[in-house]
């Protein structure tokens, strides 16, 4: 007798775990930018491109999770 049954792919859980790191990373990047802008408002324009570059580099980790989920879909036991 099945008391409780969960159906679906474990990939969803895996992706949830994979998103923790980039989530923290992106938070740190924006926190650092806000802090530096609050301390030195005139540096806001100079540091802005670097913030976006850092954001993009960290964000790609979460996005790799999406991409590899599809790439390895066929081989993963569901």
């Amino acid at each position: 007798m099945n008391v409780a049954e969960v159906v679906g792919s474990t990939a969803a859980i895996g992706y949830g775990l994979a998103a923790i790191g980039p989530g923290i990373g992106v938070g740190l990047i924006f926190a650092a930018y806000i802090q530096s802008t609050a301390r030195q408002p005139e540096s806001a324009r100079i540091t802005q491109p670097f913030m976006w570059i850092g954001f993009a580099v960290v964000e790609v980790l979460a996005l790799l999770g999406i991409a590899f989920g599809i790439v390895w879909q066929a081989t993963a036991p569901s």
Partner: protein
Amino acid sequence: MTGQTIVLADTPFPPTVDDFFPPSILPWGGDGQWFTKITLLLWLSVAILILYFLLSYRKPQLVPTKKQWLAESIYGFVRNNIAVDMLGTKNGVRFAPYLTSLFCFIFLMNLWGIIPYFQISPNSHIAFPIVLAVITYVMFIYVGLKRHGLGYFKQALILPAPWFIQPILIPIEFFSTFIVRPFSLAVRLFANMFAGHMLLLVFTLGGFAMIDANALLAPVSLISWAMTVALTFLDFAVIALQAYVFTVLTASYLQGSLAEGH
């Protein structure tokens, strides 16, 4: 546009990758043909961009008209805030036309993802981001080789560090500059557009699935559709951001290629 009308209520709930492959458009018709909505949107984007910039610069005036003002602001934004800021005045102005085209093209291609009736971005097929990333990749290597000759590879791979760390550092630098860069550029754009479309699908189709499952769930499906509207606005932010990020990263790679040695 026969064959394009998909009844959302009949689409099975958990959306799959198959939902990213719309059927061909008549008169070429039939599955497996080449002329799909994606092709149409690509052609539309190219046509709109060429026509828009040609028409708004046809009779340039000292006091710009509305159309000219908008085109000039877009070009001015990319030139001053991205190209000149990152590459310096001389090189910035040199690369500004390409960076502007890149920015506008990616922005327009992404924008199809939230325009009603179209609502899929061609960039959610990885082929398009790959081509854009390859152009950037070839360009920054070519510019580096032209600027420094073969010394470019020495400059890119060998950083000022103690000699005993070099055996680790050089492979890492090679991996990050020549393998990860184009790969991450392509995957970033693709995955953002893919995830955006998938989110909209999940909440739209989820609403229908809940209404079909149980009449008591109907209020929840209204919440689901309200989320779709909210997520469309979020998607717009992502669209603009990804166009900007792709352009900034291209400029930053060019900056690395043009920089003087350490």
